């Protein structure tokens, strides 16, 4: 389990600051790739499919897709950071091995990395939100709560990704993470079509995916259609994040301290 006194918020902050420092050095390439992908989906689906399918549940199709895709942008920000980037830092650059010879402990490094994943989530999600606002999709001032939501969901996706990274034997296995987890979730989280149109077992299965709750919440906030049931989405995200939080910390300790 996690050792008492092993974690220091200050240590985590220091590692987070390191990542910010590096990110600024490689800006704007660092943001371009992960940011462009959802924008391409937006243009292709919004205008392509949107030309045939004009509205879903009373919403213009572009608006429907855009308000869901924004959650994906946020998910990708955290996921790329805590899969490929984290793995390269850990395995090839040995940045974690270097950091833990200083007053920083493994716990600080892992938490710092997760916080940075969440930060990237906010950066990407907010950039995407700004773009879709230009398309006139934002209908409520509640949209201002979307960036904080992305911080929470970014923590969740970072924790999940870091758990995989901590046990991943080789960088070649990340495509499995994307093909078996991220992509199906991307398709079945109510971004491109409403889940209630599907057979009920599919909708129930989708409820188990983290992304569907983020999509549900961000769409409701952007459109101002928030209801009490959205509280459950928030609770879902919080419970999963905190329940899983010890996993990457413990697993990364085991991996690095040999």
């Amino acid at each position, binding site marked *: 389990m996690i050792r008492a006194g092993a974690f220091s918020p200050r240590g985590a902050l*220091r590692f987070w600051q*390191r990542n910010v420092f*590096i990110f600024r050095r490689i800006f704007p390439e660092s943001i371009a790739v992960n940011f462009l992908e959802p924008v391409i989906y937006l243009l292709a689906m919004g205008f392509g499919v949107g030309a045939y399918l004009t509205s879903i549940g009373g919403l213009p199709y572009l608006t429907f897709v855009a308000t869901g895709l924004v959650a994906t942008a946020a998910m990708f920000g955290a996921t790329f950071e805590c899969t490929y980037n984290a793995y390269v830092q850990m395995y090839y650059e*040995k*940045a974690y091995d270097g*950091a*833990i*010879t200083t*007053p*920083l402990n493994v716990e600080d490094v892992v938490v710092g990395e997760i916080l940075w994943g969440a930060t990237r989530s906010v950066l990407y999600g907010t950039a995407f939100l700004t773009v879709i606002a230009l398309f006139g999709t934002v209908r409520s001032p509640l949209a201002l709560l979307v960036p904080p939501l992305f911080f929470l969901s970014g923590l969740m996706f970072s924790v999940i990704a870091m758990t995989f990274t901590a046990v991943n034997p080789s960088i070649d296995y990340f495509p499995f993470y994307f093909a078996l987890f991220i992509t199906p979730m991307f398709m079945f989280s109510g971004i491109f079509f409403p889940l209630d149109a599907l057979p009920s077992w599919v909708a129930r299965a989708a409820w188990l995916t983290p992304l569907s709750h983020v999509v549900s919440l961000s769409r409701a906030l952007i459109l101002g259609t928030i209801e009490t049931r959205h509280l459950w989405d928030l609770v879902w995200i919080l419970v999963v994040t905190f329940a899983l939080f010890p996993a990457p910390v413990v697993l990364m300790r085991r991996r690095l301290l040999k």
Partner: protein
Amino acid sequence: MPVSSATAPVTDAPLPVVQAQDLEKSYGALQAVDGVSFAVERGECFGFLGPNGAGKTTTMKMIYCVLLPTAGELRVLGLDVRLSPRQIKARLGVVTQDNTLDTALSVRENLLIFARYFDIPWKTARRRADELLEFVSLDERGRDKVEQLSGGMRRRLMIARALMPEPHLLILDEPTTGLDPQARQLAWEKLRQLKRTGVTQILTTHYMEEAAALCDRLVIMDHGRIVTAGSPAELIRTHVGREVVELRGFPDEADARRSLAQIAAMAGDLAEQHEVHGDLALIYTRDGETVLRRIREHAVPVESTTLRRATLEDVFLRLTGRMLRE
């Protein structure tokens, strides 16, 4: 003139910088470090030698607090590694076996980021970074990316980075492995300069000439244990004597053994110790000239003979054997 009590501290003898007592580290059934005891004194350079898998790096990692001992006592800078790892790590400089530099950042940025891990203010960090880059002769390369540096430069940058927090103890795990001779000489020069400023150093190495050039005292480890300890000169004197006669070119090992036995017999008490390894026979002696003369006088069939001074490598190979370790 009154004697000031401040000039003569009344404290006990200074505590060792590192003190290990029956230190052990095991992974399941594997005993990586199997009960080692040693003390590193302030200001000295202390070496760990040993074949691959001897437990050197594991011992280093316990000293710099990334591995917890399984059993035994280990105090670093007077603190228990189990109780105060963060306080210990704050006062150490560590050069790990693998470089852990941020290759996307510049040379100078690497130092600055590292300084922040130690909560060194930016202003101080910038000043120290410039001083240290000059110290390791990288002051012209501060703005270059780490990717552009040679192996020797990267190693010097690792040393400079380890010095950022002004450590009380510098730990160097194979500081010059893989470097060319020029790069190695330069690294040694820097480490000797550091020692003159009073920084205590612990190093592991596979290079006997490195240990001889840098270490005041050293231990040789094998299979997780310390097999011998002392200064390089002491170890050579104790385990091999002054000179070595190397005899080569026997047709086979049996022949080498026969001839060596013959030579040993006629060299009498001059051949203090002797051994055969493949087609090579070694005689450890205090008077190599006489041994050589007797070999010539008795016309023992030997292709080539070499007389040389005994080195740490002889000690090392005698104590750990010549079996290949992988």
